């Protein structure tokens, strides 16, 4: 088993990130098959992920305390935060939809922030245990990332549809929308810049 389990890099081979061609390390800077840039691992993977993650943590605060949406009905202005919108849905007996929004807007971003932090620590400190388990978490984070955009898309539809003449009814986005959208994008980029092969590298003590 021992030899068969070795990584390509340990054998002096680099896999092209785009087309999958295996090239000899330091032989070329560009893939001979597709012309893409060759890197043994994503350059500065941990630094990029950490920087994006810190920005996401910072933006997560305004995203949750400021209103994400303002509803103007007959001149009565109602401001909703993310949590407030979920409570409003619960009060209207729309618990399943409230649960959906809760998962997409509260749980998923939190899971991404904490999960990516744990992954960073894992890779940095070379915890030598259960790479399969960490890999599963990495894949879950990559998979769920985009679904946090739910709230932003919902607001975009409401803005388009609820625009009734004479100030009868109107929906305006709130300052938290920008912060929340930034959290979603930055955490997606953070997950993308984390090279999952680093989780396995420590197994070979590279």
């Amino acid at each position, binding site marked *: 088993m021992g030899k068969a389990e070795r990584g*390509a890099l340990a054998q002096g081979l680099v896999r092209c990130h785009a087309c999958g061609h295996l090239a000899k390390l330091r032989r070329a800077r560009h893939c001979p098959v597709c012309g893409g840039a060759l890197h043994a691992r994503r350059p500065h993977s941990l630094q990029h992920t950490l920087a994006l993650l810190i920005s996401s943590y910072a933006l997560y605060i305004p995203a949750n305390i400021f209103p994400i949406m303002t509803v103007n009905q007959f001149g009565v202005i109602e401001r909703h935060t993310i949590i407030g919108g979920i409570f409003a849905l619960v009060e209207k007996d729309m618990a399943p*939809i409230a649960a959906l929004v809760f998962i997409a807007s509260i749980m998923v971003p939190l899971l991404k922030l904490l999960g990516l932090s744990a992954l960073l620590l894992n890779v940095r400190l070379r915890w030598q245990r259960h790479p399969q388990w960490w890999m599963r978490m990495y894949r879950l984070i990559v998979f769920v990332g*985009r679904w946090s*955009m739910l709230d932003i898309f*919902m*607001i*975009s539809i409401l803005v*388009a*549809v609820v625009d009734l003449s004479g100030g009868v009814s109107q929906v305006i986005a709130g300052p938290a929308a920008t912060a929340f959208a930034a959290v979603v994008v930055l955490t997606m980029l953070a997950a993308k810049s984390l090279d999952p*092969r680093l989780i396995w590298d420590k197994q070979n003590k590279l």
Partner: protein
Amino acid sequence: MTHPPDACPECDLLLRPSRPIVGEKIVCPRCGYLLHSPREQSVERVLALSVAGLILAGPANFLPLIGITFLGNSHEGTLWAGTAGLFAEGFWLVAALVFLSSIFVPLLNISLAFLISLHLHFNRPHHLLAHWMRWLQHLEEWAMLEVYMLGIIVACVKLSDTADVQLGFGLYAFVALLLVNVMLTGSLDGYLFWQRIAELRRKLHGQG
């Protein structure tokens, strides 16, 4: 034809070259990554689906998705108006993101898939083929039509409380576009595409 050695893209395990037959799936024995899942007539399917997607993009973007009637007033919203509305309210960053993930990137992906599969189907080499394919791989996760669909459903439920909601023709086109996009992603056999691109690249350089 012999296959070159392979490595898992997510855990870097060196693998013996293998090319399963259509319907088989090969996963990485160490991390479980799906390495190969060849599809029947992958190039032709991608070509057909991308043509369908290009046709559907117009109505999906500009015909009303949903409309509401409230106290005798009615108003309809399109995909495009969602972006334009956010922009008009001064949320240009959010507007740009919604525009990219719901309109521009899906359309760009379908166009790239069309260009690539067209060239592969007719065996026409092009010096940008590898670039297009790389872009397609990078942009895939930024097309979020299915998330937008869920957003439409949540918005409908929220609105149904106070107003009458009507489904527009654009919504049917949007759902069809979403399905085409999902099927396109599923039919695209990356391994086969890269192999064909490499063959055409050799042809191009051999002639030149």
